[in-house]
């Protein structure tokens, strides 16, 4: 495991240690802290505040300091970050996972956020770890999934983790961000999607781990890019902006983006809401047949948002020949849309998934179709919850960008707006991310998620993540629990 610290000088953590002049320089704090918060270089100083686990520490330095020079404080900057969905705890936890490759050792709530809906009202029912003798050892737990479960002649594709990277177009994010994601996916034995902005040549060495997206604007879609890959994703809609197509504002259409999409520099690019050649389900089947005419063994994924008849969309896609139905819920993000589009309009994903899961079961085709969920999957616990609700796997999006040190400032749509060089194609800002650094950060994030998922699945006494699919008995919803006083808990 390669540790990859922040690229910035003062990483933000939850706690700060305050050291007074009483400090004797004895170095006891350096010796006692397992996380390297304090260092002795000549004199003793606190170097890595951000690693401090705070009150969770079993043997805190501020208690063992002979001079009483240390005190624990909360970092005021910490509380300026984030929002109720991506809390500061979640942001910093993700940074920690991206740095160390495992979940935080303490001090941070890395499992849930503080919103009043969605995954934050769900809890996994996990038996306590110390009492679980029947739990299989970590090495025996498999968290990989099959993506093509139909009996047909398309590729058999297995990914080693139950997630792959969602489409983020070249234009909404930088080439460095894109490449980091793809290379990390390759390292973890999974995939990453190109998004609707075309397939940059830089991705070519990783063809086997790329999913080409065919979106409604058909940007960058060529037979060549469809033939190169083993999975093709139709993007009918995006949960973050249902009813609208892709919308890349003018100042993000840099020369590089315009070249990729063969459009005009500086002019905004709209993808239409529907595919103009698909206004009906038999058109959809024809559309899938078209991709198969170009690449007969491609695995086909259909990405839709979550309207009230999403179950019918799912079964219609099955009969039209798709392998994966990808439900993108309303908590999802977008780096390429005006503010007015970033509203929650579609059905929340935690309702859509069980609906589709049950409907496909009633149709008798659940075993033949892979259900992927996306939109607001922040932690491995969100992954486990949505699988327990009925998905086979998820797509990751914002979490990967947070791993690259996104702070969720919401300035993505303006050209030079991304302070961290992630959601930009400006040549100068793009250089803020070093490719190896970015790649390893996401590898670490994915590794942390994989480890945590293995733990969760193991604790539930299962040997494979596939056993968790649809196991709503492993979940409780706080709003629907009966409390002693009879009102919502």
């Amino acid at each position: 495991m390669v540790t990859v610290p922040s690229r910035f000088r003062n990483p933000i953590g939850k706690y700060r240690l305050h050291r007074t002049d009483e400090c004797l320089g004895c170095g006891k704090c350096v010796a006692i802290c397992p996380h390297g918060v304090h260092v002795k270089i000549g004199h003793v100083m606190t170097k890595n505040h951000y690693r401090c686990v705070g009150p969770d520490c079993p043997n805190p330095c501020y208690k063992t300091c002979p001079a009483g020079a240390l005190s624990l404080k909360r970092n005021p900057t910490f509380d300026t970050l984030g929002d109720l969905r991506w809390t500061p705890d979640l942001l910093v936890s993700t940074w920690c996972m991206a740095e160390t490759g495992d979940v935080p050792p303490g001090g941070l709530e890395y499992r849930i956020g503080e919103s009043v809906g969605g995954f934050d009202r769900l809890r996994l029912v996990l038996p306590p770890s110390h009492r679980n003798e029947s739990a299989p050892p970590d090495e025996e737990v498999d968290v990989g999934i099959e993506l093509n479960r139909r009996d047909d002649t398309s590729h058999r594709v297995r990914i080693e983790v139950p997630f792959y990277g969602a489409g983020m177009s070249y234009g909404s994010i930088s080439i460095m961000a894109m490449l980091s994601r793809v290379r990390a996916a390759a390292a973890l034995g999974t995939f990453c999607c190109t998004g609707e902005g075309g397939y940059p040549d830089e991705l070519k060495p990783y063809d086997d781990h790329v999913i080409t997206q065919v979106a409604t604007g058909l940007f960058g879609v060529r037979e060549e890019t469809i033939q190169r890959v083993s999975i093709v994703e139709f993007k009918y809609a995006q949960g973050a902006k249902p009813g609208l197509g892709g919308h890349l504002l003018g100042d993000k259409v840099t020369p590089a983006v315009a070249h990729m999409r063969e459009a005009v520099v500086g002019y905004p690019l709209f993808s239409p809401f529907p595919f103009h050649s698909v206004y009906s389900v038999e058109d959809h089947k024809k559309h899938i047949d078209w991709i198969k005419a170009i690449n007969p063994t491609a695995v086909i994924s259909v990405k839709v948002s979550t309207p009230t008849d999403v179950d019918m969309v799912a079964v219609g896609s099955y009969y039209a020949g798709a392998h994966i139905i990808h439900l993108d819920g309303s908590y999802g993000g977008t780096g390429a849309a005006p503010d007015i589009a970033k509203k929650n309009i579609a059905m929340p994903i935690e309702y859509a998934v069980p609906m589709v899961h049950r409907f496909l079961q009633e149709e008798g085709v659940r075993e033949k179709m892979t259900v992927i969920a996306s939109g607001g999957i922040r932690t491995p616990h969100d992954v486990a919850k949505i699988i327990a609700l009925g998905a086979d796997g998820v797509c990751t999006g914002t979490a990967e960008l947070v791993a690259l040190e996104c702070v969720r400032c919401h300035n993505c749509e303006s050209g030079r707006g991304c302070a961290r060089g992630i959601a930009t194609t400006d040549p100068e800002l793009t250089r803020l991310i070093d490719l190896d650094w970015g790649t390893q950060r996401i590898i670490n994030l994915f590794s942390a998620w994989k480890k945590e998922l293995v733990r969760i699945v193991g604790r539930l006494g299962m040997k494979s993540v596939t056993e968790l699919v649809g196991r709503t008995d492993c979940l409780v919803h706080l709003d629907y629990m009966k409390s002693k006083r009879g009102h919502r808990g």
Partner: protein
Amino acid sequence: MMKNADTVENIVRSRRSLLEDLPTRKCYKKEEEGGCGVTGFASSIPVRGKHIFEPSRQMHNRGNGLGGGIAAMGLDPDMLDVSRGILEDDYMLQIAVLEQGVMGDLEKRFIEPYFKVDLNERLPHVQDFRDIPGLAIKPPNIWRYFVRVKPPVLQEFKERNNLLQLTERQAEDEFVFQNSFKINKTYYDVLGNQSAFVLSHGRNFFILKIVGYAEQVVQYYQLEDFKAHIWIAHQRYPTKGRVWHPAGAHPFIGLNEALVHNGDFANYYSVVEYLRQRNIYPLFLTDTEVSALLFDLYSRIYGYPPEYVIEALAPTMERDFDQLPPERQRIYRAIQATHIHGSPDGPWFFIIARNDTVNRRFQLIGITDTSMLRPQVFALHDGEVQVGLVCSEKQAIDATLKSLSQEDSRIGSIADRYWNARGGSHTDGGAFIFNLDEIPSIAAERRLTCVDKFGEPIKAPQGDVQYPIYHGADDGPGSQVTISRFFNHQQPELLYEYLTNKARDWAYNSLIDPFEEIKRWAFRNDAYFEVALGTLTKLLDLRYPTYDKRRRTILQMVHEALEGMFRHFPYLDAQENGTYRLIDWETRQLLRGPIRNEKVMIVDSSLFPPEGNDGDSRLIAEAYHRGWTQFIVFGLKGQRFHGCGLGPHTGAVRIDIYGSSGDYLGSGIDGLSIYVHGNAQDQVGQIMKSGKMVIYGDTGQTFMYGAKGGEVYVMGNAAGRPLINAVGKPRVLINGTCLDYLAESFMAGDPLNGGGFVVLNGVEFDDSGQVRPQPTPYPGSNLFSLASGGAIYVRDPFGQVDEEQLNGGEIVSLQQRDWLLILPYLKENEKLFGISIEKDLLTVNGGQMSPLRVYRKVRPKENEVEPTGLGE
């Protein structure tokens, strides 16, 4: 005859009692329609049911075998064992029985008390449904009654409901309608018990529908030889619910009409509310059912003429409304104000078979929605036997005609005219009607005419249509012909000219001799074959006067000669040397790379499936990867995806297409050339990257959607949304016009700097092969909308295109450098299609004009599409 308001009110009120015992549950859509294939044809003479077979089968990929139905109208009384009088005057009450033993109760409660039954019977059917390949669910047994309402019952009905002002027949119609509603209410519940339902109850037609494919209806109920004037069929693609119920399939009924539908309403609930306000309560919970109920409401209860019915369903809006004459605007406004909530919203296309009993005429009607979101093609075949056709795909029209022509040689395999409707337009109203009127003193034949929504007739070209019969060696000018010199000197263009000149003097029978001789020459060696191919292809592609003969008959002869020539070549296992090799479904495993001097692969598509790994388009891609680069494809019946799958850098490849090609032709091509010797269908050239495409005819919906480049020439018209979302540098020349939404969101850079453009000439060929301008170069109201790059060069000497038709663009005059840019393409256009720049394009009202005054340029307005207003 429009009824007065009180009468309408009384009829509506009379239905109140029908609804009292219905549960007040919300009417949500139980079935998703979405996809389908629809087809229909009307013939001046009754024709057999087997002819609805081929087009239905070829549209399998538009359905999923979970619902299919047909309607037959204008029946032959002999085949039904009734007199003509009974057939015309009685109601054919046809009931599908799903549960044994229910009919005793049904007859006792709903038939015996009210009807005089002139005949009742069980419909014959194949003994074991499993004998029909692919049919998985047993179709219902059908009980049929020819009935009239007993006069005392009718009188009581009129009195009780205050309907004394209705004529006997009107009252009887309403009684039958209400009685069938009661039957359906009692014996059929979509969500519960289903024992029987009424399939149809109108006069001189019936409906049959099953859980299966449409043509299986014909097979199961043994209708192959059953004759009718009008047949319509529907292949359904339902997407919800495991147990399919036959009553959910189309067609649906009002009273005297059968309606099939392709599409999906976004406002189903609103339409249902609208109907409920008029005491109409849908029982089968599908879009199609409410469409039929709306049609019946407007045409029978309100008594609107077809024009108003169509306006109520598909209102004329925006610029099209402004173009209407003031009197029409007044009436349409009133119609819209009254009926807008019942107007279906969303993609839809209706085909309706209607018995207009008041005017004693049968009608086949096609209506398309105002946003033109579904494909639709109409066709007219005139001659001794007249046929009108309307379908989701042109290939289904051709399949129908081919089937008919094989039985009756008076019917050709090609129509005289093919066209699309422009939904909600002031030009045709988005609807066409084929009328079958009686011919005095001839019972078994009717006269077919075609009109648009406004009553404007559509006519076939003049000319005799007798199909020639080959008599063998004959005396006549034909047999004196020596065309050998054209072969000896390798001059296909001169042979073409010779033939088109001689067409003036020769009768058909004389024409056939040179065709036979051309074939004989072609069989001799490859060089002569190439002359023959060149000549015959030119006869297909170009327009020339045919004098007293019909173009379609000549085309039919050419097609048959070509097929004979193509099929004469050896397969891939032949021993002898040769440039040309034939491959077909039976010999497809022989596929290998070319050896020795083999160059051209001739693909006989006729038996290949329309898509998938076994399709002929996949075969062509495989053949290309093995080394073949020249392809001739013929015998097409709507197969799809030709040219797809060959990947990048295919500049050396050329594909020639003969026959009824299918959707997605030439999509994604990157380098190759494709020549379509006829009309093309939908989604042609989608995401095309580079290469050359020539279409000797019209093309269909979303032509070149998302295209990135290419050089494309279209001899005729495009349909809806051509070049939408196209980028890069496509250079396209459309000689005709389009339905609407040309080049929406075009992003093709600066045409004067390597970017893309469209040249729109707005011309057409008349029946004698002369080029003339169309009424307007662009009739729609959404030209170049939201485009940020590229340009449209439109031939518009009279300045007919105005700013109101644009949305974010501007019209400027042509500059010399624009002219120099498009001139080479116009020259190529002239070479390909014979459309002369000097004589046809730059001649206006008899005099030559400067190109800078004939053409105008539509280009993006500077910075018009910045979204700064979109809510920061």
